[in-house]
């Protein structure tokens, strides 16, 4: 389809191909899922899909400024706020998996097998072992804060603790740091599997409702940003939630890791 230009807008300097831009969270990108899906989408719709690798914060910021057409993130509260503010059309869930708490094999605080809230309580009470936090306001960091809250702690107190390290970096480097320092950390499944071979860490806490990690996609609201390629943004959402692609998402990673990295979740907006 021909590019849809809003008439009273100046003609862009480099019109070239029709491009659709989606800003995506790092954990989704690092698993390679996007690289897998991108050519299929481009093939189907005859456009260039630009996948921008971003943290949740900057992805939302780009969305607010109209620099992308859609965002794919995993931070429910912030996503809902984004939609409520009128920047996003609608939050559409398309997959989920679980966070897990990993740590050194000798597990100095003895959290193995506990629930996530208990594990964090244990860390706080014993002070044995260290904990590396993303510290970057990412979706994962948001989840970590939520667990601290559920465990009954004031986050400001937690981050003041001597054993609490704020890495201020993405998931991969945070895992590397945790491994180097032999510390605990909260990670998403995909990134952990991708890095596992180089890490000296084992999964310790894997069960608990709070560990649920939901990925959703949001089209940018064309009323706010008239130049949004809303047609293709909608196509992308339809594509991700289509049964064929949902099936592919459900199988992704089995070959390489022996287990699926994601569970398809189209239609599970309540999560």
């Amino acid at each position, binding site marked *: 389809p021909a590019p849809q230009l809003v008439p009273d807008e100046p003609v*862009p300097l*480099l019109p070239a191909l029709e491009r659709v*831009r989606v800003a995506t969270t790092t954990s989704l990108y690092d698993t390679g899922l996007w690289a897998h899906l991108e050519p299929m989408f481009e093939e189907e719709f005859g456009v*260039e899909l630009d996948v921008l690798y971003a943290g949740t914060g900057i992805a939302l910021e780009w969305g607010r400024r109209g620099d992308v057409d859609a965002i794919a993130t995993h931070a429910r509260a912030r996503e809902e706020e984004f939609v409520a503010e009128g920047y996003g059309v609608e939050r559409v869930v398309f997959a989920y998996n679980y966070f897990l708490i990993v740590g050194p094999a000798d597990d100095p605080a003895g959290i193995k097998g506990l629930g996530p809230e208990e594990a964090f309580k244990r860390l706080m009470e014993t002070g044995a072992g260290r904990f590396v936090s993303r510290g970057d306001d990412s979706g994962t960091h948001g989840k970590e804060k939520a667990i601290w809250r559920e465990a009954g702690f004031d986050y400001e107190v937690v981050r003041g603790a001597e054993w609490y390290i704020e890495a201020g970096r993405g998931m991969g480097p945070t895992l590397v740091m945790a491994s180097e320092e032999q510390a605990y950390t909260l990670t998403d499944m995909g990134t952990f599997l*991708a890095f596992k071979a180089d890490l000296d860490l084992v999964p310790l806490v894997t069960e608990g409702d709070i560990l649920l990690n939901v990925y959703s996609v949001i089209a940018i609201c064309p009323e706010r940003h008239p130049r949004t390629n809303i047609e293709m943004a909608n196509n992308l959402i339809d594509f991700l939630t289509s049964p064929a692609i949902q099936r592919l998402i459900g199988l992704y990673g089995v070959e390489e890791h022996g287990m699926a990295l994601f569970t398809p979740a189209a239609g599970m907006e309540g999560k």
Partner: protein
Amino acid sequence: MTEIGQGFVKALELIISLDPEVMEIAWRSLRISAASTVLASLICIPIGGLIHFRSFRGKRILINIIQTFYSFPTVAIGLLVFLMISRAGPLGFLGILFTPAAMVVGQMVLITPILLGLTISALSGVDKAIKDTAISLGATEFQAIWAIIKEARYAVMAAVTMGFGRAISEVGCAMMVGGNIRGFTRIMTTAIALETVRGELELAIALGIILIGLALIINVVLNIIQQRYT
């Protein structure tokens, strides 16, 4: 450390197999950085000449400020350029955010202080007698500036080389305004950064080696040209 060895092996593999993605990224890196260096040089060398040549109040302060901007972090420059060309920004209508054009602009902004500052200090190295000689032989201001630049050509070339080096090796700004889009704005450094955070250290090292190899080739070529024409 074995990663470094393996990185070398991988680099060789990638080069020998002419891995199309790597080749494409390398070529893009080169084009973008060359474009920004050439454009920035065309602007900065004459301006640097003018600043060197004229004496005016606040000249020292101006040079000081230029040198200060050596310390301008690339991420901050990226951010500024981003704010300018993002759709909500004053130049948003150009629609160049997340395109190679944006990266060229970003790199130009990035290396302008270096090119200016180093050009000025290269020219300060030229004997004042050269300026006097040119002027007394009837040169106009610009002709005299050109004569001084020619005298300092090695040092000016070194400044340009440095500018190119900085452009091709920086990542913060390219990431910010280019977006590291595969097949479109992904260049060597953003690719390295990506592979690094993804834990693909060997691949990152291989790309680093290829980048350095490229830079070496360019340097050698420039040197040969320089020696031929002087």
